[in-house]
């Protein structure tokens, strides 16, 4: 079980201070009317969602007293959904691969401690990706334009 967690950790360390290749891929993604802003905003939203889910699930597992099989049954389709979304909608293929690695490793999880370690490591990776995507959003300009439009 430790090996898959380590693999995600190594992948996470590689993107910690160096911009991931997925960022360049995401920037090529055009949405409606051939603009990229909606893809970036939606990608950030989807990354943040998974971090929230993972952190809460990890917290429940750490408290104990829950059924591991149920935790895995809840987590598996979430990981499937987000892996497909990251890879398919936003071209973030490395991120999708990391989520799929976690999904495959989930089958081998034997204890709640292992479950918490796996979901925790994946959460750190996805969280880091989320903050990289956040840097693509020109919040200052966006805020100014929003206020002008909504006036």
């Amino acid at each position, binding site marked *: 079980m430790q090996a898959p967690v380590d693999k995600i950790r190594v992948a*996470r*360390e590689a993107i*910690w*201070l160096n911009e991931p290749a997925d960022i360049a891929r995401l920037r090529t993604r055009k949405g409606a009317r051939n603009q990229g802003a909606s893809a970036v905003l939606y990608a950030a939203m989807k990354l943040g969602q998974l*971090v*929230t889910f993972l*952190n809460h699930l990890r*917290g429940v597992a*750490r408290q104990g007293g829950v059924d591991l099989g149920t935790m895995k049954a809840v987590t598996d389709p979430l990981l499937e959904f987000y892996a497909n979304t990251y890879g398919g909608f936003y071209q973030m293929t490395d991120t999708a691969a990391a989520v799929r690695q976690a999904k495959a490793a989930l089958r081998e999880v034997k204890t709640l401690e292992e479950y918490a370690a796996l979901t*925790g490591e994946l*959460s*750190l990776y996805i*969280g*880091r990706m989320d*903050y990289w995507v*956040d*840097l693509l959003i020109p*919040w*200052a300009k966006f805020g100014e334009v929003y206020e002008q439009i909504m006036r």
Partner: protein
Amino acid sequence: MRKEITILIGKEECTVDLLTDLAPRTCRIIEDALPLTGILSHAKLVDREVFFQVPFFIDEPENMKVSEKGELAYWNARQTLCIFFDDMVPLGPVTTFGRITGNLAGLQREAAEVWEKPGKRMVIKAKQR
């Protein structure tokens, strides 16, 4: 015993007092993780707050309080170190573990730019004696 750490941001060097009496476990975890390098984002709902993600969880809350200007906190919902660099209205209580005691003005100059130019790097390291 008073414990200090150092923040490096841009050209500025700032001193932080660790609140070891109020948040001893958190301070120990932070100290053990030093040096920490972060890529800063500006908070979106709270004004005058910058933050960066750290690669660890601190699961037991400690010294939970609504942060004030010049304080450092850990937010476990997103594994981030939050630096409240000026007057602001925080969202709620967080694990508060440090207080800037040296060169807050320098930090304010550098951190204020993060709203317009996110991605600035910050290093937090042990204080050189």
